[in-house]
C-alpha cells in the first residue's frame, strides 16, 4: 500500500513514473510531487500510470488539480499507459473528455 514516485526531467519535458496504489493515504505525497512540476511554466508533463494497480477518486481529484495548475502555468499534463481498471474511473466520471489520457491498449503499450 505504497506509492513510489520517480521524476525524470529533460529540458521542458517532465516524465513522472508512478508505481503502486493511489488512495487517501498516498494521495498527499503525489499531490505535493505533482505540484512541484505543474507550478513551473512551459513544461510538458507526462504521468506514466502503467504500474498503478489501484486508484480511487482521491486520485481523480489530484489529477484534476494538477491539470488546473498546469494550465495556469502554461504547461501541459498528459496521463499515459493507464491500466483498464484505472482508465475506467476516468470514463465513468467523464474526465476522459477533459483530460489528455492515453490508456494501455489491450495489455501492451501502444
Amino acid at each position, binding site marked *: *500500500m505504497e506509492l513510489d514516485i520517480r521524476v525524470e526531467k529533460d529540458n521542458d519535458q517532465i516524465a513522472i513514473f508512478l508505481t503502486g496504489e493511489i488512495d487517501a493515504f498516498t494521495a498527499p505525497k503525489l499531490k505535493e510531487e505533482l505540484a512541484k512540476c505543474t507550478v513551473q511554466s512551459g513544461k510538458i508533463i507526462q504521468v506514466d500510470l502503467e504500474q498503478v494497480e489501484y486508484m480511487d477518486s482521491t486520485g481523480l481529484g489530484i489529477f484534476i488539480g494538477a491539470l488546473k495548475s498546469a494550465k495556469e502555468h502554461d504547461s501541459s499534463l498528459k496521463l499515459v499507459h493507464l491500466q483498464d481498471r484505472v482508465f475506467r474511473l476516468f470514463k465513468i466520471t467523464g474526465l476522459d473528455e477533459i483530460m489528455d489520457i492515453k490508456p494501455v491498449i489491450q495489455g501492451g503499450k501502444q
Partner: protein
Amino acid sequence: MEVLDFIEMRVPAKAEYVGVVRLTVSGIASRMGFSYEDIEDLKIAISEAITNAVTHAYSEEDKGEITIGFGVYENRLEIMVADHGGSFNLNKIKDGIGPYNHNEPIENLREGGFGLFLINALMDKVEINNKFGVIVLMTKYIDEAEVGFDDQISTTQ
C-alpha cells in the same frame, strides 16, 4: 434471505487504514466467489466510503474510529461503513435508511467530489443514513442477473 455471516471491524479514522479495509473486502469477496472485476469494484467503493468517513471524523473531531460491517448473504455482500466507533445494530440501522437524495446537504460525503458518485456507479444498491453519524450501506450481488434495480440507483443525476 437470512444473513449467513456478519463480520465487523473497527479501524482508526486514518487514511493509513483505507488500504487495510480494502484488503479485507477483497478477501471476503473472493471467498464468496465474486469475479475479479466485481472485487475491484468493491475495493474502490469501500475505499471511497472509508475516505469519506476519515474526512468526516477529522472535521468533527469525533472519536476517530470507523466501524465497518460486512453482511455475507448467499447472493450478495452488504457493506456498512459508519463514521463513529459504536457497534452496529443491523436491523435498527436498516430501518432508518433510505435512498440517497441529491438535494440533501451531506457536505462531508461531497467533499471527496467523485466519491459517492463512484460508489453509486460501482455498487448495485446504495443507501445513506445520517441519523447516527453517517452510515453508508452498499450492496453488491454475486450473480449479475439478480441486479434488477441497478439503473434506478446509479442514474440519480
